């Protein structure tokens, strides 16, 4: 059946699988289009180089800043801020979210408050954080925390709440006590979706980096790109953005591997 279909039919059939080689080719082609388009616009002077640097300049800058160690230094500072903020947030959000999704008595008081806070723009809290926490790394971690925690809480609570009732009921008929259900049933059952939530919110944590380094930072990828803006070093901004994207891609892959390791049973 499948062999009688042409490649074109397969490509245009909803949900149909395509060969891995085709998928890779398409993914690479996308990058070629993006970078090619960029090269065309910059080398062809369609956009002045002051606004759009050429890929060559960005690579040169990257090479130069890698050699003197500054790229590594700023990346490390940023990674530290994002990862610390993310860890502090997750360590509280996972157990609290599980509780919230499991017990109505925890959900009832928390949910209205959390849903109010999570729609507040993080940037509007930066002055407050500076006032309260100062301008050290703690302030930047607080921004990442604030940006991710409340989103995580709501999502993890949903993960817990969507655990099948019959799974919990079955565990009761096997001798699980009510107080044990969270740890023995709801947590492991929700674990794959909790890990998915962490992976998605890790991405959001990276997007708050520039906001976190907007004020009073003296190092980090967000900081150098803000500084570069003042000096019209568009190539540095491009490099910093690419570095953030790349780090996001790496943490995303790490989470995928972690999920496959920790929850091998889940599809």
């Amino acid at each position, binding site marked *: 059946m499948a062999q009688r279909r042409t490649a074109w039919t397969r490509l245009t059939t909803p949900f149909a699988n395509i060969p891995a080689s085709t998928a890779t080719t398409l993914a690479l082609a996308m990058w070629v289009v993006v970078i090619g388009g960029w090269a065309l616009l910059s080398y062809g002077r369609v956009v002045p180089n002051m606004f759009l640097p050429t890929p060559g300049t960005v690579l040169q800058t990257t090479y130069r800043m890698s050699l003197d160690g500054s790229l590594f230094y700023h990346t490390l500072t940023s990674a530290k801020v994002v990862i610390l903020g993310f860890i502090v947030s997750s360590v509280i959000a996972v157990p609290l979210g599980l509780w919230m999704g499991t017990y109505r008595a925890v959900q009832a008081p928390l949910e209205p408050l959390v849903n109010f806070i999570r729609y507040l723009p993080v940037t509007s809290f930066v002055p407050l954080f500076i006032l309260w926490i100062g301008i050290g790394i703690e302030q930047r971690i607080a921004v990442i925390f604030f940006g991710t925690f409340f989103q995580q809480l709501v999502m993890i609570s949903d993960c817990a709440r969507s655990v*099948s009732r*019959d*799974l919990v*009921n*079955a*565990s*009761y*008929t*096997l*001798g*699980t006590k009510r107080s*044990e259900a969270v740890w023995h*049933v709801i947590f*492991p*059952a929700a*674990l794959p979706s909790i890990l998915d939530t962490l992976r998605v919110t890790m991405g959001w944590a990276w997007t708050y980096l520039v906001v976190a380094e907007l004020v009073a930072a003296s190092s980090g990828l967000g900081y150098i790109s803000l500084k570069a803006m003042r000096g019209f070093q568009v190539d540095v901004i491009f490099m910093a953005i690419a570095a953030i994207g790349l780090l996001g891609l790496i943490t995303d892959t790490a989470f995928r591997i972690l999920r496959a390791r920790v*929850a*091998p*049973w*889940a*599809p």
Partner: protein
Amino acid sequence: MGTLILNATSQTVAGSRVVMTETVKANNPAGTAHTAGDPRPAGTTMAIEDVTLRYGDANGVLALDDVSLKVAKNEFCVIVGPSGCGKSSLLYLAAGLNDVTSGSIKVDGREVIEPGPDRGMVFQSYTLFPWLTVRANIEYGPKRKGLPAEQRRQIVDQYLNEVGLAPFADHYPAQLSGGMKQRVAIARALANDPAVLLMDEPFGALDSQTRGTMQKLLLRVWERQQKTVLFVTHDIDEALVLGDRVLVMTARPGKIKAEIKVDIPRPRSMDVILEPDFIALKRRILGLLHDEIDEDH
């Protein structure tokens, strides 16, 4: 809902004469009639007395109306009824997963107030723990009980063999077919050595061939293990192939309408469905159920 059966539709079903005599008894509002007739009066494992279930407040839907029944030790008791008659609700009450509105349920003389490992349950939906292997799923109950590892291993091995899944001990539920999952669910419930095994349409989601295989397997396990079973189904063939006794429920609100002893000798093969005795019993139950469905519309 009060008076049933006394309409013309029962004429069309052969055997309806029997239906009428039985229904009179079951409709006795005193609710005293249907506790009689245990096939093995030696000991009662489960006694459901005057149980009423109403959802919501006093004006809520009446799901079960004054249901009484007893399940004898080692008896295989089956409840059949039209869909929505509350037969599953009755099992959830017996398991302690829901609270009765009035009445009482006792297992081995102790009143059911919450779920416990003395009442194992097999659900219609697949409820294996997806993060545990087949072995760990079966081991779950004995582990909660705090049995030592060596004893747990023996129990798990015994029930793995009993349901024929020893080669799949280290598989995860996602790697099993529907029938295999329910076999593990049965093994998992039995590994806890419950006083009564509650089965809520456990084969309802399976295709008819797998269902037949599962019925055969369940009969074999039951005959060897000697367990008390309360089994809910809407499949009359299944009820008669498996049960010592079949209780027919009315449509909502659920009541026990009739009680039919299944005198077909054991061990039963699947071919039993072709025998005249079986067909006569089936005709009686069909008649009882048809009246319910006719009344509904």
